[in-house]
């Protein structure tokens, strides 16, 4: 993906942070818009086109969370990445549940920031993928039409709930999925708080799909937030055209 294609709106009330991000981003070919408050960001997004928004969580005025909620109303597919600090897990979860695409914990490196932005933009620009389209990431392949999962070509026996968890995570590969969202999606809203329940299933799932469950490389934990399926390779389908390195596995 070319950097030139990406227009980023940088929203942070701290001029030093905007400056430290703006300079390398522009140098690396991004187009950068800036806002120091949420209200200003809402106006800019209405007037101009952006490919992604880097939105600080803690700002004066309406703040990051409220800005996110309002942005989502008229820009449902615009990738929004929240800039948070560690120990604000509750805010991270709330932001993801309110539609943020991802979060970046301050302080972060430009490399990490660029990777997250590119990944979010790539996902947003990929055509809508049919729900039953097969997905392959690394050695793990899931075939929704037949509820089959394979690891390096060999079928893996999963319980229905394990399958549902894996499918939900792989469908959103690269994105943090909150525990609450996973629980609601797999068990229903009544189970939203049963985080230990989910952890037990994730442990079982890791034993089946990971080479070393203690050092997972697919099913990653976002501590105190939820889980994230690694985005090692892209989805099957049109997304592949953007990623020549991705390994395409023909539908069997």
């Amino acid at each position, binding site marked *: 993906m070319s950097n030139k294609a990406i227009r980023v709106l940088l929203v942070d009330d701290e001029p030093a*942070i905007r*400056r430290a991000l703006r300079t390398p981003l522009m140098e690396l070919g991004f187009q950068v818009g800036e806002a120091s408050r949420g209200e200003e960001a809402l106006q800019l997004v209405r007037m101009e086109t952006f490919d992604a928004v880097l939105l600080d969580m803690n700002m004066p005025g309406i703040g990051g969370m409220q800005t996110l909620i309002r942005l989502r109303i008229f820009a449902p597919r615009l990738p929004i990445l929240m800039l948070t600090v560690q120990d604000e897990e509750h805010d991270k979860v709330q932001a993801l549940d309110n539609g943020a695409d991802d979060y970046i914990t301050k*302080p972060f490196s*430009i490399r990490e920031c660029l990777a997250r932005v590119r990944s979010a933009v790539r996902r947003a620009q990929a055509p809508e993928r049919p729900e039953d389209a097969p997905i392959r990431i690394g050695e793990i392949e899931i075939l929704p039409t037949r509820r089959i999962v394979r690891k390096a070509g060999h079928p893996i026996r999963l319980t229905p709930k394990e399958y549902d968890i894996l499918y939900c995570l792989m469908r959103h590969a690269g994105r943090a999925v909150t525990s609450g969202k996973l629980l609601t999606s797999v068990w229903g809203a009544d189970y939203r708080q049963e985080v230990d329940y989910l952890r037990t299933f*994730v442990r079982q799932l890791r034993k089946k799909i990971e080479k070393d469950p*203690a050092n997972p490389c697919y099913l990653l934990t976002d501590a*105190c937030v939820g889980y994230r399926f690694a985005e090692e390779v892209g989805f099957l389908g049109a997304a592949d055209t953007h990623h020549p390195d991705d390994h395409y596995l023909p539908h069997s």
Partner: protein
Amino acid sequence: MAFDRTLPGLLSSAIALQGGWWASFPVRGWILLALVLWIAATLYLNAHTGFSRNQRKSKRTEAENVCELVRRAAHLDLQQKPGPQMASLIHSIFGVEAVAIFDGDLDEIYQSGKWFAGLEDTIRSIFIFETVRDDPEMGLIRRVLRVRNLPIGAMLLRGETSELTANNVASLLSITFDRYHALASEMRMENAKKAEELRTTVLDSLAHAYKTPLTAIRAASSGLTEMGHLSPAQSSLVALISEQTELLNHLTTRLLRTARLERQSLHTEPVAIAPLIEDVVAGAREHLADLSVKIVLARDDLTIFGDRGLLDAMLTQFVDNAGKYARSGSTVTIQAAEQSAEVLLSVHNLGPAIPAEDRERIFDRYFRSTPQHHAPGTGIGLSVAKHAAQAHGGRVWVTSDERRGTTFFASLPALRQGGQA
């Protein structure tokens, strides 16, 4: 319980019944108590019909004076020391020639009226030797002040008053001193709590304020690297900036976390060990970059009744520590075992040994072990781990030698069936 019908008897019974809640005894309660005492005194006097009319009148006056003292004592300003106030009250209400009170806790003497030389030694000796014998010739009345049978001070009166009244006054003094000390202790605790809250709030704000410049420095230095065009020397310096920013960030995060942990009260719930370990390992990935992690569980459903945040902080500290000191490429083993009613958590790494003399002290705040294997740190983390284990009624310790490596242990009460630790 059988009650003594004398006034001191009633007072002592009340003290014995109520223990230490005098400090919070409401004013209305004191007035009620005074009324009860007055009635008791009247009953007592009526029961002693052998007295002459004048004697009965005198006794009644003394009983009324005691009630007045009780009433006034109930309204004392206990922000101030009660000794001077009580000495003055007793002097004026009972019309004795002089009053002296010794507060054993504060080692202070308060007096009202004219006293002879050597008063200090006399009143101290009453307290030390528990001398309660009166001296009618000198007109001296000696009493030891007691709370729950322990001497806390002494009273010396000069002038005419009955033994019964002296006993009542001494009992009331004891109660008042007890109230004062209980209130003072409560205020000290309250002040200490406020100071602690202020300290943690300042730490919290500082740690947050640090994040902005840290973010700018990290983004700027990593931006320079990403943009390229740097000479090897420039790259090296930029890498140093990035590395030290990371260190400063780590320290700030620790500070923030410590401040929050110390401020929060324990929020207990059943905490499953296996996912706890997984979360900790996920959070400590950076510190375990070139190491393998092995998790060994006695049972998959091992559970502790505790505070998830504190347990996470404790285990994170152990794992961070192992990551910091483990030999490159070695394995860090995290184990959870059951031992009777306890869950034993341990984190093992191969690396330099901790000297025997440091093994207890490394859990003390700000203590850092010998610098032979220098690694960045504040000396706060392991004290947080100790604090966290103790808050759960558990303990921490470490074993270490060059050959077998270093293992940090935490022993915590296990969750029994029925949901209690």
